């Protein structure tokens, strides 16, 4: 992994491919194929054109060969005709043995030797005078007969007086004419046919089984009336599209198509992989950006390579600033020793960073090695969790607990003082009265011993002082100023339950809240009431410790219209029921007696304090056995009006006391 690329990537996210580009690349895809097709088409056109030209040339050569053959054959026949005429001219008038006469004629004999099959001598009346035939010479195979058809040449015989005395007719085989060895070069190339006027083949150079299919040309054979000469090429000119180049080209096209297809498929896979990578990159980026955990990567020298948004927000610098300056919290840039020694473990260490704006940020840093593709460690990857808020909340909760426990301690102390004062009040009052009375009596009696009088007066003073001390202590501790403000009792209940959440969890107690959302706000001393609720919840929790599970605790808030003290208005009531052992027949008076406790380590003041707090609000505390067998403690707070009256009275009382 090239680590700088990570940072780079963070800045410049890959742009999504545009539609235009896609069309262009699509064209690029098809271009090779299209060009190949074009090329092939051109080649095919060229081949076709070439073929046409070739055919034309061939045809012309056939025509030329035909015409030239015709001319040669005509010339040959003409030669024969000339020789026959010469023979006719030299023929003497018919003798006694015209046959012999004819046969010894040298021209005739030469002609029979050469080509003539027979020569017939006709007189002027068309009677046969003589006939000469070719002798069958042994060893020489008979000439193929042209299907029995023979042709003939005619030459008139003449003497000095008569231009025509008869005729010489020489028969010849047309096959012999055509199959002459003189035309071997033609015969190799063409099939030569002589056709009658009706189109019958008179002579062919070819054996009947073999049929020539090539280019053909016919021309009238002037030497023989009504006959035609036809040349047909032996080798058939192949169709242009069956030529090797075209076949190769088509093959090439097919190959190109396949290649394109394969390439396309390959590229599609690449594209898909690229898209997947882009997707993943975008995903990873948004993941990094949205993560609430700060992320940063550093190389082995501690230089920052990458940081996500949360990290930047955590310290107040942008990535660029962090990368360039390696800023003030440089001391954090070095990997912690413990992490270095245990690279596989994710050991978090807690530390404080200074944010750019100066405030301190509590963070927990988890470092793990940053490994590249080759398995080489190139740096450290760190995830950083901001725990400032968590710490603040924990601190807040601790403070609240402290306030509450402080208050509880103070209340306990106050209750002790109060109880003590109550217990001491009566005897002190008696002592004050008696001592003052004695002093007065001695004073009136004549002849009283002055030291006795002084002692009595001192006794009275000290007793009064003692009373004053008790009074002052009680004033100071028991009469805490109530901070009366309108509060929602449900909020206080929820807060108190939340505060004890851990205790409940530890004791395996499930808590059900059933809070009436429509309760009016009541003026109350928040800390005091919270202390009452906390105390009752704790009592319930402790009471259930000995009972087997399931342990459940139910907290109800409701508006009760029939409180024991009687009031037309609704009293806000909180009831806490447990599944503990219950009250065991004790009533609220017994339970709230000072120093009465069912708990070994209890002070026996908790409920008494609760009752004092509630009564100072004009409220009442009840206790009864719950339906489920446990205990149900509940308290009711009067509507605001009553509180106001009580406050008024208190003021009055204070005023009056100060008069004494």
């Amino acid at each position: 992994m090239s680590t700088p690329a990570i940072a780079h990537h963070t800045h410049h996210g890959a742009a999504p491919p545009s539609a235009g580009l896609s069309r262009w690349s699509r064209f690029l895809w098809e271009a090779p194929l299209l060009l190949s097709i074009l090329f092939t088409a051109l080649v095919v056109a060229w081949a076709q054109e070439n073929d046409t030209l070739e055919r034309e040339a061939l045809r012309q050569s056939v025509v030329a060969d035909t015409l030239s053959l015709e001319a040669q054959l005509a010339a040959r026949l003409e030669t024969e005709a000339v020789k026959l005429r010469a023979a006719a001219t030299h023929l003497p008038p018919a003798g006694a043995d015209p046959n012999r006469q004819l046969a010894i004629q040298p021209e005739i004999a030469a002609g029979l030797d050469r080509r003539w099959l027979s020569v017939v001598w006709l007189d002027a009346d068309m009677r046969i005078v003589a006939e000469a035939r070719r002798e069958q010479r042994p060893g020489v195979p008979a000439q193929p007969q042209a299907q029995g058809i023979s042709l003939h040449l005619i030459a008139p015989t003449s003497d000095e007086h008569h231009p025509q005395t008869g005729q010489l007719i020489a028969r010849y085989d047309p096959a012999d004419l055509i199959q002459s060895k003189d035309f071997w070069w033609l015969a190799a190339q063409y099939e030569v046919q002589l056709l009658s006027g009706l189109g019958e083949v008179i002579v062919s150079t070819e054996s009947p089984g073999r049929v020539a299919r090539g280019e053909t040309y016919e021309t009238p054979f002037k030497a023989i009336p009504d006959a035609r000469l036809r040349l047909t090429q032996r080798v058939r000119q192949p169709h242009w599209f069956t030529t090797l180049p075209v076949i190769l080209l088509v093959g090439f096209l097919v190959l190109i198509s396949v290649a394109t297809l394969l390439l396309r498929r390959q590229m599609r896979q690449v594209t898909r992989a690229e898209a997947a990578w882009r997707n993943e990159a975008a995903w990873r980026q948004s993941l990094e950006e949205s993560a609430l955990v700060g992320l940063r990567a550093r190389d082995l020298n501690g230089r920052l390579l990458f940081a996500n948004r949360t990290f930047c927000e955590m310290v107040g610098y942008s990535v660029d600033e962090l990368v360039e300056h390696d800023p003030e919290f440089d001391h954090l840039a070095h990997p912690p020793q413990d992490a270095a020694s245990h690279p596989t473990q994710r050991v978090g260490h807690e530390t404080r960073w200074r944010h750019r704006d100066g405030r301190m940020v509590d963070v927990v840093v988890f470092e793990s090695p940053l490994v590249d593709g080759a398995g080489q460690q190139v740096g450290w990857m760190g995830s950083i969790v901001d725990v400032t808020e968590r710490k603040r909340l924990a601190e807040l909760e601790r403070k609240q607990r402290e306030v509450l426990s402080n208050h509880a301690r103070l209340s306990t102390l106050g209750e002790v003082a109060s109880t003590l004062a109550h217990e001491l009040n009566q005897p002190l009052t008696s002592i004050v009265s008696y001592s003052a009375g004695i002093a007065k009596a001695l004073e009136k009696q004549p002849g009283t011993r002055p030291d006795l009088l002084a002692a009595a007066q001192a006794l009275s003073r000290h007793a009064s002082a003692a009373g004053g001390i008790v009074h002052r202590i009680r004033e100071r501790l028991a009469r805490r100023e109530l901070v009366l403000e309108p509060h929602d009792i449900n909020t206080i209940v929820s807060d108190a339950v939340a505060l004890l959440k851990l205790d409940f969890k530890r004791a395996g107690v499930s808590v059900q809240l059933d809070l009436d959302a429509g309760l009016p706000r009541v003026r109350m001393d928040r800390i005091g009431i919270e202390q009452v609720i906390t105390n009752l919840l704790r009592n319930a929790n402790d009471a259930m410790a000995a009972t087997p599970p399931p342990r459940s605790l139910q907290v109800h808030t409701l508006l009760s219209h029939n409180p024991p003290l009687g009031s037309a208005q609704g009293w806000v009531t909180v009831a806490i029921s447990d599944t503990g052992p219950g009250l065991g027949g004790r009533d609220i008076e017994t339970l709230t007696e000072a120093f009465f406790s069912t708990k070994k380590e209890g002070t026996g003041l908790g409920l008494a304090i609760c009752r004092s707090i509630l009564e100072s609000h004009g409220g009442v505390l009840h206790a009864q056995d719950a339906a489920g067998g446990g205990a149900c403690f509940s308290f009711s707070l009067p509507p605001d009006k009553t509180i106001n009256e009580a406050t008024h009275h208190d003021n009055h009382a204070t005023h009056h006391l100060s008069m004494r």
Partner: protein
Amino acid sequence: MTTTQPTIYLCDDDEGVRTSLAFLLRQHDLEVTSYASGPELLAAIDAATVPLRGIFVLDVRMEPLSGLQVHEALISRGLDKRMPVLFLSGHGDIPMAVGAMARGAFSFAEKPYADEALVQLIRQALNAEVQWHGRMARVDALRQLIEGLSRQQVRLMPLVAAGELNKTIAWKMELSVRTVEEHRRKIFERLNVHSAAELATLLAEARTAGIDIAATP
């Protein structure tokens, strides 16, 4: 209980406090009668043959009747108008004592009290009782005087006090002027007043004391 001398009727169920306080007060030459409970006190009051003089000192927290309940009983007997009620309060029951004050109690003392302060408070109450007694005596006398008048004279009296002329009164009440003059003379003589203004003052006093005087007809 035949004495008419102002007495302190002390009621506290704590014997130590009760006896010591009685002892203290007696040393101040005060008359004290103490009771251990509310019912005991109420029984003694109901058994009295002559009108009582003095004050009540009640502890707030008592059994079976609390100081407040005893106070209620005194109010129902009309005694609270004649005899001041003073409460002794321990801590924690001050709101109750304050409530009692609101119902007309004279004052309360918080235990443990300083002796001089308590004696002084009791003397104040006793003085108040004397004043109350004097006022009540006058009211009683006044009631007797008014009760001595005829119905017609009672009806006529407010008009005279209002300064109406005899003629007007006569016209209003459909009497002769002479009769009105006679009534006026009798009223003045009976009530020992010499002018309509004096009569008006007297009537105002009587009304304040709760004596029923017929309104203008």
